């Protein structure tokens, strides 16, 4: 019953989202103003929703993928007791609510409310199994990392309010207000917004929470930490494209950070042995690609990749969940192997996901990644080469994962071997649907070179994201680039096949060990930030808190108490003394009135 309600409301939202989408498609974008939310002085912030091309697309992704994952969850979470099951679904629904608020808001404040809401749900769901202390730590880490970004976001909001006195999109992006902003202001605001986005979307330097966030149940990882919430940063920047386009510095920062994250995460993913961790780093890496796209001005390519990524990454996570389910909770790929025969559907869907993410035509990932790579090529050739390298790394680690898990000999215990079985329909059907979407999803954005007017998505988004008039690469070059990247990817896949068909695990050395330990970034953060801050906190606690603040507060309290004890003595209970005191004060007042102030 809980599950039916939990899924039903999301399904209803999905149906409504389709209706909204159809309306918007006919050109009926609108801003629905409900009431005045904040009204202080000249600042008016209304509680308003904006339904346009960008938000309606996100609505579809969130509710559609969200619905599938809800259905999957019913079966995946079956072993939880009913109360916990209800808690799980209430968090999940609250997440969908917040996420919808985030994308539907017609101003930054509503977006911020949703932004905080999804952060909260993420925290709650990462720490869903709250009895495990490690999971709680992961939840805290995610929350704190996000708070750093949120602070920057908030400062950006205040900055906007201070400079132009409004936060609503239509007003901020109007030509008059943009003209009122100095270019330094725009740079600062966009950089602050990007810091917020980096927190939510796990970019350098705030990315370390996302891999740890895998502590949550797998469907949560699929929905929140792969398909939807982590793309909020992309949404925010795509929404603010009018601001970003005015600041070359910010654009460069976004592009370089995105690319660096993409490469860094991809290298780490090469050596991870936890099935979910590999996918987590892959998510970080793909998010980096999206930021790269935004940074070179190809906003619609970024949004396109959000969409296809939502399909194939959700699929990969759900399939990974199915594998974990089959293995009785085992997540270490060194103990798997040869699963392709036992769980066929999972295997095939996972394979489709891998092909899609690797960017092999004509699967969806190919189109979106190609759009990004092409835009990067137009922008800067060096970035293009690095981005292409990243794409090859992606193909490599994904197929490494596929081969280790599904081919070769089974390496688990005998008990697991007998236990292994395919997941029930409630889990496999969402996977199959997502697999179909992963195959076909790219067809909304077929490049111009294959089909005239094939890039429907960019055309659809054009009212929100103006087309960039840049240098256009000739069709021949484009075809060559595609061929190179596709062939290289296929080559890498074959290479991976030979490398991991029969796996032997040995202790890593040198660079491998560094990668396995994630470049020691966590340790570095621990040394640079956490420990000094803890020490500072301990210092303030022992010196300021104990001796300065406490003494001050307690001193005031003691003083009041002392005064009270003394004043009490005035109340002697003797009528005579009362009258005396009254008469004395009357005389004093008379003197004051008649002699002191004339």
């Amino acid at each position, binding site marked *: 019953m809980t599950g039916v309600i939990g899924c039903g409301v999301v399904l209803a939202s999905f149906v409504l989202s389709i209706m909204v989408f159809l309306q918007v498609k006919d050109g009926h974008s609108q801003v629905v103003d409900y009431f005045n939310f904040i009204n202080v002085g000249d600042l008016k912030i209304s509680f308003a929703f904006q339904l346009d091309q960008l938000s309606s697309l996100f609505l579809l992704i969130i509710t559609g993928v969200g619905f599938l994952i809800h259905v999957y969850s019913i079966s995946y979470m079956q072993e939880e007791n009913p109360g916990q099951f209800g808690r799980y679904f209430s968090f999940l629904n609250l997440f969908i609510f917040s996420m919808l608020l985030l994308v539907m808001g017609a101003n930054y404040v509503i977006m911020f409310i949703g932004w905080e809401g999804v952060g909260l749900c993420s925290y709650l769901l990462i720490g869903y199994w709250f009895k495990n202390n490690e999971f709680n730590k992961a939840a805290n880490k995610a929350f704190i990392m996000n708070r750093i970004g949120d602070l920057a976001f908030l400062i950006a909001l205040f900055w906007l309010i201070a400079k132009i006195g409004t936060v609503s999109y239509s007003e901020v992006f109007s030509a008059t207000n943009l003209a009122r902003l100095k270019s330094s202001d725009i740079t600062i605001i966009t950089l602050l917004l990007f810091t917020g986005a980096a927190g939510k979307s796990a970019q350098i330097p705030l990315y370390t929470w996302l891999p740890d966030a895998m502590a949550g149940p797998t469907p949560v990882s699929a929905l929140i930490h792969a398909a939807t919430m982590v793309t909020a940063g992309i949404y925010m920047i795509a929404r603010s494209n009018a601001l970003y386009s005015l600041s070359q510095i910010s654009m460069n920062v976004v592009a370089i950070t995105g690319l660096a994250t993409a490469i860094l995460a991809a290298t780490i993913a090469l050596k991870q042995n936890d099935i979910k961790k590999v996918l987590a780093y892959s998510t970080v890496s793909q998010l980096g690609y999206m930021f790269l796209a935004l940074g070179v001005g190809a906003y619609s390519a970024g949004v396109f990749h959000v969409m296809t990524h939502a399909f194939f990454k959700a699929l990969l996570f759900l399939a990974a969940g199915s594998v974990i389910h089959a293995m009785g909770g085992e997540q270490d790929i060194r103990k798997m192997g040869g699963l392709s025969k036992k769980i066929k559907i999972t295997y095939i869907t996972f394979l489709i996901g891998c092909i899609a993410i690797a960017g092999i035509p004509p699967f969806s990932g190919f189109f979106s990644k190609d759009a990004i790579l092409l835009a990067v090529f137009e922008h800067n050739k060096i970035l293009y080469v690095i981005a292409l390298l990243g794409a090859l790394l992606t193909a490599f680690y994904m197929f490494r994962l596929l081969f280790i898990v599904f081919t070769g000999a089974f390496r688990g215990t005998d008990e697991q071997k007998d236990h292994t079985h395919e997941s029930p329909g409630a889990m496999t059907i969402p996977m199959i649907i997502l697999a179909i979407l992963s195959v076909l999803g790219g067809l909304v954005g077929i490049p111009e070179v294959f089909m005239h007017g094939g890039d429907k998505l960019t055309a659809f988004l054009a009212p929100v994201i103006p087309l960039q008039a840049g240098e256009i690469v000739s069709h021949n070059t484009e075809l060559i680039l595609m061929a190179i990247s596709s062939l290289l990817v296929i080559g890498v896949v074959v290479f991976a096949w030979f490398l991991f068909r029969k796996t032997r695990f040995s202790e890593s050395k040198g660079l491998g060990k560094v990668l396995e330990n994630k470049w020691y970034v966590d340790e570095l953060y621990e040394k640079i930030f956490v420990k000094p801050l803890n020490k500072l906190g301990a210092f303030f606690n022992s010196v300021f808190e104990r001796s300065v603040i406490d003494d001050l507060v307690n001193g005031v*309290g003691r003083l*009041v*108490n002392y*005064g*009270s*004890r003394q*004043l*009490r003595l*005035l*109340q002697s*209970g003797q*009528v005579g003394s*009362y*009258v005396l*005191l*009254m008469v004395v*004060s*009357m005389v004093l*007042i*008379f003197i*004051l*009135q*008649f002699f002191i*102030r004339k």
Partner: protein
Amino acid sequence: MNALLLSAVLGVVMMFSGIWLKSKSAIRNVAIVGMALLLVVNILEMSGMIFFRIDTKGMIVFDRFALLFDSIAFLSTLLYLFLSAQDIEKVGINYADYFALIFFILCGITLTSSFKSLLILFLGVEIISIPLYILTGSDKRNLKSNEASLKYFLLGSFSTGLMLMGIALIYGDKGSFDTNSINLITETPSALIVAGMLLLLFSMAFKVSAAPFHFWAPDVYDGAPTVFTSFMATIVKAAVFIAFIRLFEEAFGNLQNKWQLLMAIITVATLFIGNITAVFQQSVKRMLAYSSIAQAGFMMLSVYAMNAEAKEGLLLYSAAYSFATIGIFAVLIKMKDYTFDGFNGFAKHQPLLAATTTIFLLSLAGIPLTAGFLAKFYMLKAALGTGKYLWLVIFAVIMAAVSVYYYFRVIQAMYFKEGDPPVLQITPVFKWTLVILAALVILLGIFPNLLLTWYYF
């Protein structure tokens, strides 16, 4: 005019009902029905239905300010009777007379809230005071009650003397008791007028228990039977404040620069003594006595500021303060042990009572979302509106912070300490009235306009 006559009549009716009616509950019901009737006719007068028209030669004017305050006072008294009528009967054997005295006090309140002549003011204040002397001493076998009554009477007579002397001095200069003619501007007011004004100021300050004329209050409030402390510390005190602000607005409004500093000094002294002394008290009843002085200090801010917000704020304040304090006293009456320790573990045994008491205490402390917060806010805003004496506002805020200490001590005892409070006899009416009071406190804290629209339309 409706309420003035009806309250006097009801007082007489109650005296007779004591002779004719034998059962306690019948007398109680007559009192409650009479009270409800009083409220209704007063509200009818507010909406234009005046039953009696008597020419008072302009000595009494029932304007909106007066009528609205009367309604607040009657509503508070009605709720007070619902909560505590049974406890009134326990004080002594002449219970019908207690109700009669309460009605006479209400009669005095209608006079003090609507006077236009100093004579009527005097009359009203005395009609309030004399029944109070009796009520204070109504627990005849209790020595403390007798002592309190006598003290109250002695000191009260003293202040009555001051008031009469002040009125006489003013009459000597102006040849009139009419407030409007007293207020006519003279270039430099004569010493007679100023001295008369000061004497009136002292006597009014005495009646509202403002420092340094507050000495009677803790002893009397502590000594009187708790049911009557509840009545006189709330409704009566608010009524005298209405008279206070009315007197100084209508009779001495043009002399504001002569008395504003004095008001500020009295306000500071009252806030200081009330709040600081309350901190050290061990008995909740005595703490509430000092708290009522502290609250009077806040209400003094409205007399000091004397602008539109001050009058609105005073109405809101009297409602907020009366509702909350009546509620706390009603619970306190039920307790055997009046010390803070008596409340230990109260929340576990009486969750509903503890919760409502907490709301009342939060309101008195001025925590947002309660009526007390907005009432204090209005007072501070009014004081800021004068543009003078910023230190007064800062001081008031600090003192409000001090007040949190002693109010929260009760909450702390109820919720965080282990203890074994006695089993209380609670009727459903009592419970529901408390819930209504708590709801009113919160409602006014969110929509103060529910009350204040009545002032304007």
